């Protein structure tokens, strides 16, 4: 086999693998990328039931209800809209009412967000970055959230 043929074989093989990889990436991008929404964005966009997304906002004070066997429900609000969330499992250590939270899951037929993962941040002054940015954009940002924000705290989450 000459040098030229060898090179052609190698280049052909590489291109084939790269093409397969590109196909895989594009396919995965279509199906498994999760978008972030606040409750008002979710209402505007009419996200269909069963489509996974990340819901971010503040836990509405007074909305947390603990049911039987670790079932919990609470509402996530962003100042203009509110979305009920149902979750079963242990909430992160510093999940609090009035604090920022990110839940991952999908809406069910009745419009309740069924979360299978709930992320909160460890620090009491913390607000998840996505939530803070979204609230800022909508003008619901209060500066005192950010003043003491310390990123030294890790994300803590819970998932089923």
């Amino acid at each position: 086999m000459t040098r030229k043929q060898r090179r052609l074989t190698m280049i052909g093989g590489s291109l084939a693998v790269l093409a397969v990889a590109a196909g895989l990436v594009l396919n995965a991008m279509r199906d498994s990328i999760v978008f972030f929404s606040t409750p008002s964005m979710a209402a505007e966009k009419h996200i269909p039931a069963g489509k996974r997304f990340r819901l971010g906002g503040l836990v509405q004070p007074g909305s947390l209800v603990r049911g039987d066997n670790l079932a919990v429900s609470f509402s996530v609000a962003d100042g203009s809209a509110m979305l009920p969330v149902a979750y079963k499992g242990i909430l992160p250590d510093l999940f609090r009412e009035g604090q920022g939270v990110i839940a991952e899951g999908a809406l069910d037929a009745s419009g309740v967000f069924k979360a299978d993962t709930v992320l909160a941040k460890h620090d009491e002054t913390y607000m998840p970055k996505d939530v803070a940015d979204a609230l800022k954009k909508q003008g619901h940002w209060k500066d005192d959230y950010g003043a003491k924000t310390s990123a030294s705290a890790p994300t803590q989450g819970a998932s089923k």
Partner: protein
Amino acid sequence: MIAEAGHYALVLALALALIQSTVPIAGARWNDVALMNVARSTALAQLLFVAFSFTALVMLHVTSDFSVVNVFENSHSMKPLIYKITGVWGNHEGSMLLWVSILALFGGLVAAFGNNLPLSLRAHVLAVQAWIASAFYLFILVTSNPFLRIANPPIEGRDLNPVLQDIGLAVHPPMLYLGYVGFSISFSFAVAALIEGRIDAAWARWVRPWTLVAWIFLTLGIAMGSYWAYYELGWGGWWFWDPVENASLMPWLAGTALLHSAVVMEKRNALKVWTILLSILTFSLSLLGTFLVRSGVLTSVHAFATDPTRGVFILLILCLFIGGGLSLYAWRASALKQGGLFAPISREGALVLNNLFLTTACATVFIGTLYPLALEVLTNDKISVGAPFFNLTFGPLFVPLMLAMPFGPLLAWKRGDLLGAAQRLTAAGIAALIIVAVVWAWTYGGSTFAPLAIGLAIFVISGAVSDLAERLALFRGPFAVSMQRARGLPRASWGTAFAHAGVGIALIGIVCETTWNSEYIGSMKPDAVAKLAGYELKLDGVTQRQGPNFREMIAQFTVSLDGKTLSVMTPSKRNFTTRGSSTTEAALLTRGASQLYISLGDTTAEGALAVRIYHKPLVLLIWWGPVLMAFGGMLSLSDRRLRVGAPKPAKASRALQAAE
């Protein structure tokens, strides 16, 4: 005083690095031996000063000198001594100091043990090391000085983030940095080779051990980090495809590819240009990892830096070294001579295939990690690319890689015999098929994917075993002959077999844990019993305890199997008063390679305790695999051929005389 001395030592180290980055190059240009030798002494002196600076910071933390901002923000006088020491690198400034210390350590090692290198190559390598070092010293001194004082020293510190107060912090970051920064050596060698325009098999022989050292540490560092996350974060996950984890996985994938292509270069003097490119890319990915973690562009478990000037500074370093390295490559690579010929079906061909899949897999991780950032910068859309993306891209690329893996070592150099290799793998293939059938029958009706994946893993493991058996001529001749062959077999061949088997073992662990993991989540009152995977776990009661800098709520569980009491497990929840935060300390019970895992949630109003219990079958194999890989790497490193290095002509002639 200690703080000022440490700061001053760091400035001196910068000055030395600046000398080291210029004078030896001039020496190499003018062929001046004295100037080239400057590299050696400055590299050693630089190591001395950085070590002094690092020791100074450790001493400040140990003596709890709260007049230093770094100590005040990350330490507490009541903190146990071990966490006072590990807390040194549990924050941005300290971990950057550890980074440059390790960089100086590697530079010092090249200076101390590089006596058999050609003088000009050593001068160039150390000069390139010094460029990197200078950039990072400047970064520390300008944006993240760990020795800053506070005008009015407070009495007590703010304590270290509780999640980091764990033995994992003592091991994980230093290991990871030894790996990350270790790849700077292969980068420096590559750049030096491009500057000199000369590269040969001897070059690969010098680069390979350094790459191997870095790779061993990175492998162990990633495995350690994964195990730490598993037991510390309290939800039993061991890999989250978090950007920070990906940041360490990318250099590992590229480094693994580099390790294999360096073999081709050493043995067959081929793939030179590609090996050089991989060396540059591997360290570039290490720098990218440093940037992602240190700049705070990610909101993630590990990102402590919030100051944007730091991010911009590291981004500049990143562009300078990656851009510079790649431009130099584009400019000079064509000057390098082409290497030996080989057929596509050959050992070289197999290693090229390995490189192709590893780098492609690395590219998919790269896209998955950086695409959300790019999208957010460009369109302000926020997306999260999680595990499903990586499972759909990274997974399929690893399947052909693992299928091909047992064939590689069985093929001959230059021109291999695929049919012959397949014949010698018949036993491994049959073993794999039997296992697939057994597992499929045993878990009938369950996942179809899991038995196939376990079969693949068995194929890889038994392929490694049959490779060894082939080399030892086991079962084909007298046993004594095989033993003799075993002694004579190069350690590198043993290393290959162990490392490859390690991949298979890790895969078994991953598949078993993800497929047959069972969990119990519920609230339990004292004397309540939870049943999981045949085990009975009874909650005996809850007690309170005062730790050195936290209060702890400990739950005690009695674990029994078939009515026999096995052990007592005590998961707890710690409350750290200084930071007002709590951590969950999971309790683990190891049964063979499987584990029972309990972590606690909140206490409800009625006095019931939220509990999360997992049974994780064969989960420990996930980490034993990488440990075995690292062990294989160490065996290969101890190979005589790597230690000896290329003999100089003069020495060789003297050795001949002695023999007469």
